[in-house]
Structures are given as C-alpha cells and as structure tokens.
C-alpha cells in the first residue's frame, strides 16, 4: 500500500529536503506521518502545504485570539471569504489578500494576479463581486525603481479589475523608505449574494466527482506559495519564472460560469486553485469535509506536454477552479462551462477511505493518511522580544525637535504635508481604475472617507475602506493595531455607515526574528482589542510574512479592510464642504501628540516618538454620536483626522473636489495648551471634522454620547481662502495653492517616469 517512487523523479535527499524549505524536524514529522520515506511528489505536496503561506504555522495561535462572532456573521475565518448578513436576505462576502512577493519581482503581473485571486475567493462563496479595493505600500517615490513598481502595480490592478468589470472604488497608499524593495500589494474584494446562495469549499458525498474547471494547467508559478514564505534576496531574481501571467478575460468567463454553476445545484463545493494550486485546493476541501479524495493527475487538462505529477499538483496557473460535482451531473457541469467557452474535466472523486491519494493513471504517486496532511502541520510560537531600537525611537522627545525656519509660515508646512505622496490625492492612481462600472458606485474614490456602493434593489448601501498606518505599528504595535481598526471604522462611519466587520492582511517580516514576532503578536492583539470594542468581528484575512530584504523588514503593517452598512441612502455623507455659511465642528479634542506623525517624517525626516493614544471606548462613542447626527439629517460633511492632522483634514474638506472648492475660517485659540504644530499637524485619534447647518443639534448629539465637541469655524467661499487662527499665530493660504499642492504632487512625480507611460504589454523591467 501507499505511494511508490515514479520513474524519472529525483531521489529524496537531505539537500532536496532543504531545497523544499523543510527543516529536519519537519521532515521527521512527515516520515512519522507516512511511516515511510516520502516520494518526490509527496515532498512537493508537503513543502507547499506546510509553507507559511498555506499552513499559517507561525501565526495560527495568535490569530485564534481574534473575535470572530456576531449575530450577523454568517461565515467567519476558514473559508475562501468571510460572509455577513446585511438585512433583507442579502449577504456580503469579502476578503483581502496580499500579493507582495510576486509584485516585487514583476509588478504588473504580480498585482494583476493578486486581483484575480481575491476575486475568485469571493465568487467561490457564491457572491457576485461588486467592488474592489487595494492597499499599497511603497518606498520613497524619489527612487526610479519605486516609481517603476508603483506604476506597474497600479496598472496591473487597473487592467485586471477593469477587464473583469468590477469597479475599484477605494484603498489607501503610503510611501516610506521602510517599504523600499518590499512593496506591499493587498487587494480586497467585496461581493453580494442572497443568504441562501452561500456555498462553501467542503468536499462532501462519497462518490461525488472532483472536476477541474477553467484554464488549463501550465508550468507557471510552481512553488509560488513557498516563494511567498521566504525573504526577498538576490536569489529571488533567479526564481523569476515562478511569476504567473493573469488572463482577466478568462476570469470574467470563469466568474459567470461559476456563479451559474453554484446556482444550478449540480455542485456541492467549489474552490479556487490559488496558492499551491491543485494540491492545496484539494487537500483543504477534503480536510474541511472530513472525507478522502482520490485524484488522477493524468486527467488534468494541461497546456504543455510532459508535465509531471509534481508539476501538475504545484502549478499556480491562474483562473482555475476545483469543483465537487454531484455524481451523475458531470455532463451538466460541462455544459455550463461550455456555454462560457471553458473546459471542465473529471480528475477524481470523493472516497470513503480516509486518505488523500494522487495517482498518475493507476500508479499511486502520493498518499497521505486522512486529513492529517492539513491538520498535522507543525505550529511554532517563536520567541518575542521588542526591538531596543524601536524602544529608543519611541522614547525620543519629539517636542524638543526644533522647527525649521520655513515653518515660520504655517501655510508652507501645510502645503508641504498636502504634497507628501502619502497624503496627496491619489487621483493619478484611481483614474486608471474603472470606478463606475456596474452602475452602483454612489461615492467612488476621493470625495469621501470611504467608498459607498449601492445594494441594488434596496435602500441600503455598503461603505468600504482599507487602512493601516505602519509607522504607528512600528513604533508601538499594540496601539498601531488598535488605530488601524479605529481609523477604518471612523472612515466608514463618516459616510453614514455602521461599521460591521473586518478582513485583514497581516504584512510582516520574518517571524523567526523575535522583534518581528513581538510586533506581530502585539499588533494582532491591538487589532483584536479594537474589533471587540467596536463590535466589528474579524471574518477572515491573510498573513504575509518575510516581507524583508537584507536591508531590513517593512513596517509591521496589519491592513484592515472594513465593511460598513448604510441603512438608508439618505444618510450617505461625503467629506467635502459644500455650502458657505455652514458651521464647522470638531468632534473629539486635540492633544499634544506629534509622535509618529507624517509631519515629523515629511518636514523633519524623523520617524520617532510614541504614536497617538487610542481610546477605544471614546472611538465607539464618537462613531455613535456621528451616526446619530447623520441619521437625523444634521450633517453636511464628515471627515476624520488622520495623517497630517486637523489642518490637513480641514484643507482636504476645502478642496478634495477641485471644481467645487470652498474656503474656511477656523479658530483654534481655545486650545492654547497644545503647541501650534501638534494642534495643526498632530495625529490625535478620535476626531472628526463636520460641517452643518445646525451646529447646536450636532453638539447635542455629541453631548448625548459624552463626546467632546466644539464649533471651530465656518465654511467660506473658495476665494476667501483658508484661515486658521491659533493663540499667537495664524495660518492663511489661498485654496488654489492648497489644491495645487494636494492634486499636483503625484502627477508631477509620475510624469517623470518613463515606465508610467508605457503600454501595459510593454512594461519594461529596467529602472
């Protein structure tokens, strides 16, 4: 019984084992599980399934601590995507995923296939994708290589989503030298379905048929999962053929065919062949259903001749699905796929015997007992220790940092911040994304703190946004993790939505380094604190370790993807001032918090100090108060304070919409106990700038919830400019100068990039 070696396959040697990324202990574990030496095919399978990417071996115990339940959660972590109920029998599936490593090597295809993968995760749940988001981190745009990566990633995201026909509506982007060489590319997809259309990826029913559906399998991307589980080094360059090419056209057909298939009743389960391809999809489906499976790789439709079982099992060719069809319904499945000009082939069946078996014709090339292949993978809890360098940086007294001479003109500093690529308008990015296809985008990227998507046929809408300030997480991981969630929640609340649930993408360095593991543990803890406090459970996510190179690790970046629900279309609120004469209010209070700010990074080139405090109970009260006021119809605009602080938030509300700009007259003299620059540019949390016709009603709502609030000024026509009065100084700027700084910064930088203007199939790899 059991698998026997296949003629022509390499012999399993210690060197081969090491090449597959297995430690000697892990190899011993494998031999014990099998009771014999593994075949080459088995080694490949285990190497993929026990890779960090598939097994979560360094993260699982920590992830278990996250809150995942709420009455509206229909599907928590563990499936292809999380699902929540949004009322009226409708459900929303959503998930975020990273494609950092592939994008570092080949930005266009890396980002495009990232979008493709996350789309499949959502439609395999039975949901029709209705919106895409993306969260990106790059090094400084001063570097030509970074501009090349940025341009390629944006184009790749756009081309894929545009072609499939899903609007890309929101996201967030930050630039910091910490991401140099290790860009982060996280893509999120949101889909909608009726609750009864929910389907999972659980193999069921002995005798049912396993079918491969969609594109043919080629030699591309073999070992992508283990690739994502290593540091980027010079050797990674030699691994380039692992990069896969996306085909959004086939994806669109696969999307339609899959939804038709799911609704047809001919199948019991469906799963994307994503990382580690056929191997992980089949093994995970079997483990979830607690059944055995038998797969014959010689029946797999392939693109190239002479592919070995090893290659077929580990290929990461895109746009493929694994389906469990009801026995006897195979022809019906084929018929649906054929309608969409796609193939479906029978490759195996669900069996009673508790084994995971792979054959090539009649030759067994791999066989594992039960679901132990998935459940028996090793779990590690590495040592955790905070970096002393971080402790030192956090302790820096940032108030002691002297002002630069130019700062005598506060408007100079404000413009400097508005033109910082992290803060500046991302219009250059999202004009390359189709934002309005599907005719459901009520608010696209730009004019509000989150995007708002209509749930067709209802009075409801979703608000969605991604967020994470990695600088905060770097300097104080627990607080940074809390803030990431709190900010995302504030952002959806500013559009009139109740924050419902999150998905998350944990981008970290090498977990075997104590300081990385420490930041991971703490940041996830902080994220959990905030999710509990704000009532937004975690429904899924993704872990991406090894985002580092010999120069160092990225900032720990636990990106949050938040979904909020707007009960009535009348509540949809934007961030822009619209009507001169309206009052401007600040909910929340400024504090002396300059640490970890964009101000320090941009104006002084310093990353230091403690990040702002995060009072989660206060955040919850703030959101409640704001939603009360919005639902009562009292709020004309709402915009939260994030990077760049209060002054940037006010300036943005004046001119995010360039063709409908306003001015403002602001008086902050009441806060004379806070230093000028902390008052203007400090990033104290829990603050929202609101414009309203009825300030007393908004103050009342704030008071009811115990939220400090004050009237700070009035909206003026654009030609009045922006004026902010402080105790002893005054900031004044024409609005057009602020708008030029904010809207012009990224286009000016990117117009210098040759690669930014090249055709999509013409992307150069040079610098």
């Amino acid at each position, binding site marked *: 019984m059991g698998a026997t070696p296949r003629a022509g396959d390499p012999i399993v040697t210690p060197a081969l084992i090491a090449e597959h990324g297995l430690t000697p202990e892990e190899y011993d574990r494998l031999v014990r599980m099998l009771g014999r030496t593994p075949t080459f095919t088995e080694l490949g399978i285990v190497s993929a399934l026990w890779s960090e990417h598939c097994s979560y071996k360094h993260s699982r115990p920590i992830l278990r601590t996250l809150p995942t339940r709420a009455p509206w959660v229909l599907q928590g972590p563990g499936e292809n995507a999380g699902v929540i109920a949004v009322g009226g029998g409708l459900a929303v599936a959503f998930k975020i995923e990273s494609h950092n490593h592939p994008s570092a090597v080949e930005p266009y295809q890396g980002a495009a296939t990232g979008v493709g993968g996350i789309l499949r995760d959502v439609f395999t749940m039975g949901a029709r994708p209705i919106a895409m988001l993306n969260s990106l981190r790059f090094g400084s745009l001063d570097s030509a290589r970074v501009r090349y990566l940025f341009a390629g990633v944006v184009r790749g995201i756009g081309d894929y989503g545009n072609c499939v026909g899903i609007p890309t509506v929101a996201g967030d982007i930050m630039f910091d030298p910490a991401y140099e060489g290790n860009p982060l590319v996280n893509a999120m997809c949101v889909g909608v379905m009726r609750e009864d259309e929910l389907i999972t990826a659980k193999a069921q029913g002995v005798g049912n048929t396993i079918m491969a559906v969609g594109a043919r399998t080629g030699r591309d991307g073999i070992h992508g999962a283990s690739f994502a589980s290593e540091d980027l080094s010079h050797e990674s360059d030699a691994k380039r053929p692992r990069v896969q090419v996306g085909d959004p*056209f086939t994806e669109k057909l696969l999307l339609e065919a899959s939804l038709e298939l799911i609704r047809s009743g001919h199948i019991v389960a469906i799963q994307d062949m994503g990382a580690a391809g056929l191997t992980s999809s089949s093994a995970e489906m079997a483990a979830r259903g607690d059944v055995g499976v038998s797969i014959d790789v010689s029946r797999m439709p392939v*693109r190239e001749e002479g592919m070995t079982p090893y290659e077929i099992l580990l290929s990461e060719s895109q746009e493929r699905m694994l389906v469990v069809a009801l026995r006897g319904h195979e022809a019906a499945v084929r018929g649906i796929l054929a309608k969409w000009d796609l193939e479906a082939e029978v490759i195996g069946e669900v069996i009673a015997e508790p084994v995971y078996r792979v054959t090539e014709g009649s030759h067994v090339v791999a066989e594992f007992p039960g679901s132990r292949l998935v459940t028996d993978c090793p779990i590690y809890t590495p040592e955790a220790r905070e970096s002393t360098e971080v402790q030192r940086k956090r302790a820096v007294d940032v108030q002691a940092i002297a002002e630069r001479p130019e700062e005598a003109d506060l408007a100079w500093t404000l413009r400097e911040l508005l033109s910082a690529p992290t803060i500046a308008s991302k219009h250059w990015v999202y004009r390359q994304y189709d934002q309005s296809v599907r005719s459901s985008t009520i608010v696209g990227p730009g004019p509000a703190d989150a995007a708002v998507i209509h749930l067709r046929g209802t009075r409801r809408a979703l608000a969605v946004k991604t967020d994470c300030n990695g600088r905060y997480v770097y300097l104080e991981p627990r607080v940074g993790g809390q803030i990431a969630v709190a900010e995302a929640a504030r952002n959806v609340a500013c559009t009139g939505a109740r924050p419902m649930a999150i998905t998350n993408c944990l981008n970290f360095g090498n977990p075997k380094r104590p300081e990385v593991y420490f930041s991971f543990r703490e940041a996830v803890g902080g994220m959990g604190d905030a999710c509990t406090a704000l009532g937004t459970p975690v429904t899924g996510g993704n872990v991406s370790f090894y985002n580092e190179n010999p120069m160092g690790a990225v900032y720990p970046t636990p990106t949050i993807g938040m979904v909020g629900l707007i009960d009535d279309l009348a509540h949809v609120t934007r961030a822009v001032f619209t009507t001169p004469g309206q009052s401007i209010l600040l909910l929340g209070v400024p504090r002396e918090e300059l640490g970890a700010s964009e101000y320090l990074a941009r104006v002084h080139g310093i990353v230091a100090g403690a990040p702002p405090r995060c009072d989660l109970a206060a955040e919850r009260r703030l959101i409640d108060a704001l939603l009360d006021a919005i639902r009562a119809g009292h709020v004309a605009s709402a915009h939260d304070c994030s990077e760049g602080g209060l002054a940037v938030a006010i300036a943005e509300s004046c001119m995010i919409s360039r063709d409908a700009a306003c001015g403002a007259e602001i008086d902050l003299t009441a806060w004379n106990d806070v230093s000028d620059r902390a008052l203007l540019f400090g990033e104290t949390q829990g603050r929202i700038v609101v414009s309203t016709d009825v300030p007393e009603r908004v103050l009342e709502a704030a008071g009811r919830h115990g939220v400090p609030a004050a009237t700070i000024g009035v909206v003026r026509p654009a030609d009045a400019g922006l004026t902010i009065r402080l105790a002893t100084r005054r900031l004044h700027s024409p609005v057009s100068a602020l708008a030029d700084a904010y809207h012009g910064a990224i286009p000016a930088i990117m117009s210098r990039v040759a690669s930014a203007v090249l055709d999509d199939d013409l992307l150069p*790899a040079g610098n």
Partner: protein
Amino acid sequence: MTRFRIAVHIVPRRGILDPQGKAVADALHALGFATVKDVRIGRHIVVDADAASPADAEADVRAMCDKLLANPVTEDYEIAGVAPL
C-alpha cells in the same frame, strides 16, 4: 556615424501563458482557419539609431532590450535585423 534601422522581436517566453495568442488562435479557428495550431503574439519594435558599425548598432539595441524594451521576467527578445538607412 551611420544611421541604422534595427528590428527587434519581443516574444512571450515559452511556457508563460499568452492569453492574447490563445484568444486569437481560437478566433482564427472560429473563422474557419482550421489548420492553425498555435499563435503567439509579441511586439515588433523598430529602432532607428546612429552607430559606428552594424555590430555597434546591434549591441546598443541589445542593451536597450535588457534595460527597457523586454521584460526579462516574462519575455525573450531577438534582434531580427540591422540595416543601414
């Protein structure tokens, strides 16, 4: 210095998916061109440039391919011709 016209072919690397070629092959079949077995689509780039000799011209264009014209991750290139103008 002489002016040369150098033609370069940039083609998807073998083994890498060529969705465009596949779509065109399918379309040709649908149009009745049943004898078509495979289609691969790449770029045809014509560079006019000054150089001291054909060999120099070719070397220059190779450098351009390495730096910009071809994507080494997914594409191969070949110099298809060098001719004085």
